[in-house]
C-alpha cells in the first residue's frame, strides 16, 4: 500500500476505475466462463453488440489506468535504484499502452466486420 509519490489524483483514479472494473469485469468473467462463444462469428457478434462494444471501449482504458497506478505503486516499493526503476516503469508503461491499443483495435475490427462490406470492402 504505497502512497509514496502517488498523489491524491492517482488514489482517486485507482478507486473510480475499480468500481467500473467490478461491474464490467464481473460481467466479462461470468459471460466467458458460462457462455463461451463457439465460433469467431459468434464472438465477433457479441463483441460488436453496441452495449458490449461501448462497455469494452470504456473498460480497456480504465483497466489499464488501474493496472498502471497499481504496478507503479508496487515497483516503486521494491525497486530502489533510480535508473532501474525508470527502466522497468517505462517497460510496463509501453507494455500496457501497446496492449490497450491492440485491444481497442480488435473491438473496432469486430464493429467493422459486423457493419458489413460497406466498411471493410
Amino acid at each position, binding site marked *: *500500500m504505497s502512497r509514496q509519490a502517488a498523489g491524491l489524483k492517482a488514489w482517486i483514479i485507482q478507486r473510480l476505475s475499480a468500481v467500473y472494473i467490478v461491474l464490467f*469485469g464481473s460481467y466479462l468473467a461470468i459471460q466467458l466462463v458460462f457462455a*463461451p462463444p463457439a465460433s469467431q462469428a459468434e464472438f465477433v457478434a457479441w463483441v460488436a453488440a453496441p452495449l458490449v462494444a461501448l462497455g469494452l471501449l470504456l473498460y480497456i482504458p480504465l483497466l489499464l489506468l488501474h493496472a498502471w497506478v*497499481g504496478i507503479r505503486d508496487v515497483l516503486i516499493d521494491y525497486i530502489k535504484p533510480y535508473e532501474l526503476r525508470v527502466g522497468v516503469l517505462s517497460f510496463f508503461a509501453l507494455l500496457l499502452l501497446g*496492449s490497450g491499443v491492440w485491444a481497442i483495435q480488435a*473491438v473496432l475490427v469486430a464493429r467493422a466486420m459486423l457493419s458489413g462490406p460497406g466498411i471493410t470492402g
Partner: protein
Amino acid sequence: MSSQSSPLSDRKPPLPPRPVFLDLWRIRLPLPGVVSILHRISGVLMVLAIPISAWLFGMAVTSETGFQRATGWLNSPLIKLLLLVLMWSFLHHLFAGIRYLLMDLGYAVDLAAARRTAALAAGIALVATLILGGGLL
C-alpha cells in the same frame, strides 16, 4: 535498551543481542496482513496477464483460424490451471478490493471488524473460485 547513552557521547553502548526470530511456522502474520499481501500478488499476476490477453483477444476476433488457435490454446490443461489461478486472482482482488473501498468510506476499520471482513473477503473469493472454476474446467 540502554538509558546511559547520551547524545553527546560517540561511544555507543553495546547492543543487546537482537531477537532473530525467523521460525516461519511461528511468525503469525495477522489475517488482514495476509489478505493484503494476496491483494498485491493477485494484482501483479493480472497485470502480467494483460498483454497475453490483449494478444489472444485480437487473434480470436480477426479470423476463424485465429479463433480456433486462441481457444485451442486456452483449453490446454496447463493453461487451464493458469486460468484458474487468474480466476482466483480476480476474485480475491475483487473482494479484498471492495473491502478496501468500504474501509476508505469508514466502514469496519476497527481491529476486530477488520479481521472479520478480511476472513470474509478471502473466504468468499475461495468459494466463488470453486463455482466459477467449476464452469471453467
